[in-house]
């Protein structure tokens, strides 16, 4: 049914892609200096940056993943919406203003502020690369599923080709645009995505006489689960251990947001702390509206499309929202929704690639390899090369993870981010004794344990839904490792500090404390 109007779908998408690339080219061609490329010259206002921030955050996971998860797992999928809205409070009250006052381009600026520069910067950059890669794999899986749905590509080889094309377009975005271009794409995309979900929500509600209750009632008749789909426990129920998995995911969602490198760097593209705060306020309102709509779209997809049709479509769960669009608006709305979702993915991937490559170029190349004496032009060139390398790695990972729910995959990236970054950010802001050794233990302890636990979890092996369904080396029972690895990284940070004889630099500590609250010494106004 859907494959027939491929030309129209692709037409709508192509028009959109050309427009955004043109915008990128226009604003991007003037970005010459490193601060322009990495932080858009800190020139955006709070509201602009807030919309871009929600653009960064509203990825394939939020749109395709949550809708699919709610349509198939019902209430348990709704947790993603709640967790991701609530998580912004941490960003608002603890991270945004302090980060803007302290750093310049990357997370490494803040973590290395009062520590020995080279090891901490290298660690921060490594973490950024790993998190970004995981996050990007999820995005490419989402994009692949989308195009597979549009073109009705069902073979593995065809989907691999789709991933390669997505990767190439994404690298092109980053190479041409830099941070300023990416910010404008995020703004355009966030507005379009919001319009799209609002329209779809209004449409679904309208079809059911503006009664959420009757959407839910119809949804229960379209799934083998029946009324259970409205109750907790479809995905994470049945045993106390499954409940723990739910809690673990919830923890990763709420603590991961403000630990994501591409969200953190977004606080640098405003001129001062007040604007950083305003941008989080704007982002929170935008995202609350968006995630409210995902509830209706998820259950609406179930009510109007049905769970069997969703599960059997190319792209699986991730195709719930596009299928709903096709059901209510025919092939034109399907084309538009896919184009917007695709642009959403491209923009997020571009932002991620940019952050990861900036982190590598700024923290590893400029500060570790060249010991702070790198020529800014070569720094930008290294960043661009890194972008290409990351793009290739993400394509490879996406081919392996093909068919997984993207919200679930992103949940893993959130666990990684919260495990590696949250403890170090909190300790270095609020604990005077915290030192270089503690920072390294916390970063590598959290990241290492998280990666290991994911590798030995049921997400990777042992279940039909795993990446490797045929073998079973799942020694760790939880799919999301956050519940273990996040506290572990706090413990590692504490142990690493207490066990080393190194004394934290009191002058730098005073400077960080004063500067993070006031911006004195940062040159910000």
């Amino acid at each position, binding site marked *: 049914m859907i494959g027939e109007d491929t030309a129209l779908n692709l037409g709508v998408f192509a028009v959109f892609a050309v427009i955004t690339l043109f915008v990128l080219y226009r604003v991007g061609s003037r970005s010459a200096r490193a601060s322009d490329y990495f932080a858009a010259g800190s020139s955006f206002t709070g509201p602009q940056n807030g919309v871009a921030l929600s653009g960064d955050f509203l990825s394939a996971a939020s749109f395709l993943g949550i809708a699919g998860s709610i349509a198939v797992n019902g209430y348990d999928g709704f*947790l993603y919406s709640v967790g991701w809205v609530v998580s912004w409070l941490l960003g*608002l009250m603890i991270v945004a203003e302090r980060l803007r006052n302290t750093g310049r381009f990357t997370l490494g600026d803040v973590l290395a502020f009062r520590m020995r520069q080279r090891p901490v910067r290298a660690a921060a950059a490594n973490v950024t690369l790993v998190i970004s890669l995981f996050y990007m794999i999820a995005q490419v899986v989402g994009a692949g599923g989308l195009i597979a749905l549009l073109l009705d590509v069902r073979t593995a080889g065809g989907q691999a080709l789709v991933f390669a094309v997505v990767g190439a377009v994404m690298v092109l975005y980053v190479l041409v645009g830099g941070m300023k271009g990416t910010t404008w794409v995020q703004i355009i995309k966030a507005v379009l995505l919001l319009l799209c979900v609002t329209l779809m929500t209004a449409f679904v509600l309208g079809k059911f006489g503006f009664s959420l209750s009757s959407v839910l009632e119809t949804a229960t008749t379209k799934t083998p689960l029946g009324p259970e789909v409205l*109750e907790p426990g479809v995905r994470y129920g049945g045993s106390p251990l499954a409940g723990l998995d739910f809690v673990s995911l919830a923890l990763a969602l709420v603590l991961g947001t403000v630990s994501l490198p591409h969200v953190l760097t977004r606080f640098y593209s405003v001129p001062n702390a007040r604007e950083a705060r305003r941008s989080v*306020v704007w982002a929170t309102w935008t995202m609350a509206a968006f995630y409210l709509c995902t509830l209706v779209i998820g259950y609406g997809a179930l009510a109007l499309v049905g769970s069997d049709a969703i599960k059997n479509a190319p792209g699986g769960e991730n195709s719930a929202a596009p299928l709903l669009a096709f059901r209510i608006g025919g092939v034109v709305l399907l084309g538009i929704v896919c184009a917007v979702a695709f642009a959403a993915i491209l923009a997020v991937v571009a932002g991620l690639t940019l952050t990861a490559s900036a982190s590598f170029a700024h923290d590893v190349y400029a500060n570790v390899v060249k010991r702070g004496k790198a020529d800014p032009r070569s720094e930008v060139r290294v960043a661009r090369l890194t972008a290409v390398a990351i793009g290739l790695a993400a394509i490879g990972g996406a081919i392996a993870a093909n068919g997984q729910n993207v919200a679930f995959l992103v949940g893993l990236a959130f666990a990684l981010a919260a495990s590696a970054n949250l403890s170090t950010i909190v300790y270095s802001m609020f604990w005077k004794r915290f030192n270089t050794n503690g920072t390294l233990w916390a970063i590598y302890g959290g990241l290492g344990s998280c990666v290991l636990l994911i590798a030995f979890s049921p997400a990777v092996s042992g279940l039909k839904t795993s990446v490797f369904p045929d073998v079973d080396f799942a020694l760790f029972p939880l799919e999301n490792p956050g519940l273990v690895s996040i506290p572990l990284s706090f413990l590692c940070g504490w142990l690493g500090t207490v066990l080393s004889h190194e004394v934290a630099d009191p002058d730098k500590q*005073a400077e960080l404390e*004063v500067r993070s609250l006031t911006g004195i010494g940062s040159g910000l*106004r």
Partner: protein
Amino acid sequence: MAKAILPPGESRRARGFATFDEPPPPLLVDGAGRPDFAAIRDTAEFRELRRRTRVFVLPAVLGFLTWYLTYVLASAYAAEFMSGKVVGEINVGVVLGLLQFVSTLALTTAYARYARRQIDPQVAAVRALTAQERP
């Protein structure tokens, strides 16, 4: 960056006529005009800023995390309760989930307002100690 140290006699706090017998407070910067962070940290102005931040942020963060984790634990381990119907097919779980949205927006608004009224002026007061005043 920081301006030069003010010459003696030109009091920054001059008000009325009684100021000539009061020496002007020195700016908290060193000879090169760099801020003296340790000294700033010990000023009454900075302590007040830290107090104002802490007084709001600490209870707010602990409060919302507790409320969120309660919701999550209830979903995981009190499915019966969360499945109870409130209106039509809408159950307790959905209502509590939507209340998380409401509380998040309320707290966001409250913090933005508090920061504008209580924190920003105090930041300006601390910055004035180094003559890095906001425009």
